[in-house]
């Protein structure tokens, strides 16, 4: 187990360095002077002051070599210092800390909803593989695979907020303010993400279940006269859920992409909408900070998932 964890760590650490380096370097892709762009020259809230530009140059140490700048940036980043917005004066880490809980709640709710949709659907269609219920479920899943998150989101907004008026279309209610309102404001965005996520989970679960259901211990359970419900949920589900767990990790990237869009549509103040807003107002350091955080989070969560996977299914430890 330790060897397995070490191997996974040795694989992940260079990747973490590489993704942070790339996020850091992306600024250099910009045409023109970095310091001037950071000052917001050319945008509405431009700080048209040569001293500010000079300050930025000094703060970022733009005269130093890239490697030195990267290492010092990384050093600060590890301590949670990602620079500040020169347009509003807000610190990047503060802005992220303010927005992160919203995105985490959204992703968690979406993931739970997706699993709640996928497990019954997957079990039912594997149990009746090839029959009508299976065909209905797989066709439904297939159609949702063809729907980009923004189309699902605006359809949900139209049906549940405009036509039925059950949920608010936009707006965010804080957790501490009003629990019901908070959950209501998250329902549609989370459902939109869950609807694009569940077909993939359902498909994986269905395929694994079909092969599990051919195992001897399932025949034994059937021979003992156990009810199909009991066999499916108590005997077959657990050994069939390993791939599901890894997929949940791999799908995180898609889910974050979806969150960026869904947060913008439903006006949830999360990381995704902050990223879009920062891009539109050309807040480079904000963009840099958010993107590196997302990429590192993806690598770390997948590392954790891999290690969990090793703990759950010792066969892959070799």
């Amino acid at each position, binding site marked *: 187990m330790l060897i397995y964890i070490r191997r996974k760590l040795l*694989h992940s650490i*260079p*990747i973490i360095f*590489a*993704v942070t380096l*790339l996020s850091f370097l*992306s*600024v250099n*892709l*910009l*045409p023109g002077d970095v310091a001037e762009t950071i000052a917001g020259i050319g945008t509405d809230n431009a700080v048209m002051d040569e001293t500010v530009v000079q300050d930025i140059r000094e703060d970022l140490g733009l005269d130093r070599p890239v490697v030195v700048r990267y290492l010092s940036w990384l050093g600060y980043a590890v301590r949670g210092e990602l620079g500040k917005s020169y347009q509003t004066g807000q610190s990047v880490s503060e802005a992220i800390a303010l927005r992160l809980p919203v995105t985490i709640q959204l992703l968690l709710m979406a993931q739970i909803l997706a699993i709640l949709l996928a497990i019954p659907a997957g079990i039912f269609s594997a149990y009746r593989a*090839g029959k009508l219920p*299976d*065909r209905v479920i*797989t*066709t439904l899943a*297939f*159609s949702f*695979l*063809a*729907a*980009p*998150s*923004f*189309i699902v989101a*605006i*359809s949900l*907004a*139209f049906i549940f907020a*405009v036509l039925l008026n059950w949920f608010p279309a936009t707006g965010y209610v804080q957790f501490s303010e009003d629990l019901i309102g908070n959950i209501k404001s998250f329902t549609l965005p989370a459902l939109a993400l869950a609807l694009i996520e569940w077909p993939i989970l359902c*498909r994986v679960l269905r*395929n694994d279940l079909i092969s599990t259901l051919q195992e001897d211990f399932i025949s034994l359970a059937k021979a003992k006269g156990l009810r199909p419900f009991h066999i499916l949920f108590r005997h077959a589900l657990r050994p069939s859920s390993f791939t599901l767990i890894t997929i949940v990790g791999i799908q995180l*990237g*898609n889910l*974050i*992409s979806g969150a*960026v*869009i869904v947060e*913008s*549509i439903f006006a949830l103040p999360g990381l995704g909408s902050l*990223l*879009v807003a920062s*891009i*539109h107002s*050309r807040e480079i350091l904000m*963009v840099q900070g958010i*993107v590196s955080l*997302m*990429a*590192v989070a*993806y*690598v770390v969560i997948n590392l954790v998932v891999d290690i969990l996977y090793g703990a759950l299914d010792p066969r892959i430890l070799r």
Partner: protein
Amino acid sequence: MTLGLPSISKSREAQRSDEFLLIGKNTRSTSLGLGFWLPGIWMFFLLFTVIFADILPIQSPTESDFSNLKSRPNLTYWLGTDVLARDIFSRVIYGARVSLTVAFLAPVFGMIIGLGLGMLAGYFKGIAESSIMGLIDIILAFPNIVLAMVILFFAGADIINLIVVLTVTSIPANTRIARASTLSYSEREFVLAARAQGASDLRILLYEILPNILLPNLAYILSFMSIIIMIEGSLSFLGVGIPPPTPTWGGMIAEGFADINTDPHLSFMPASVLFLTVLSLNLIGDCFRRRYAIRESSL
């Protein structure tokens, strides 16, 4: 690049084992059911109007007819008119130009690069494999829409950059498929025979392995095209794709979303076209994949 439909068919057992979707009853025989022909007709119709849009008698996508502001679908304006009184039908068609160009080129370039990387990784193994797969993991660490948004933001949003960005996002999946199929072929007897005859690695890769793995890789390309259409749509929806006045599907949907309370057709007309296109590509792609792809479990 036309795939055509050569009448090579796998054994019935092999086909059955690949099955996931069971639309239409003919999927088990070699004939193509409604699941192929309906989306095929849709794609043909779309491609035809997109290619000949300049000759066909359709309205201009940029001219406004202010006597018909935000009109509902009618005989003159088949899909209605938008907030600036422009014909939605013609904007959808011209918008398809961007989506389809990008959706065609990016997966093709992505496949060429992915084939190269995947073959190197699968054939040479060792350091080549671990560094290429490391590179893939690095690309995957950035959520695809975030990656595309950021690169377009830093490098400028034009069609060339859009194609480059979307090519990058389609490299990982292509590389994985190419690597998996290379791994299974590089141990086969004919490769050993070629090596025994003194063939160079390059020759083996190009003449022995490539012809065998090309078809399984091509089988996935339509699915990648549909994913690219979705990403391109999302980018223009967020306002970071091709900037207006060029019509894009995502841009039209975003524009109409402001009026979703009163005029839902502004968003839902382009949205339905996008959805049907992606669905059609998936359905056709699934037909190809069922015929030619290697089992997904070996990826």
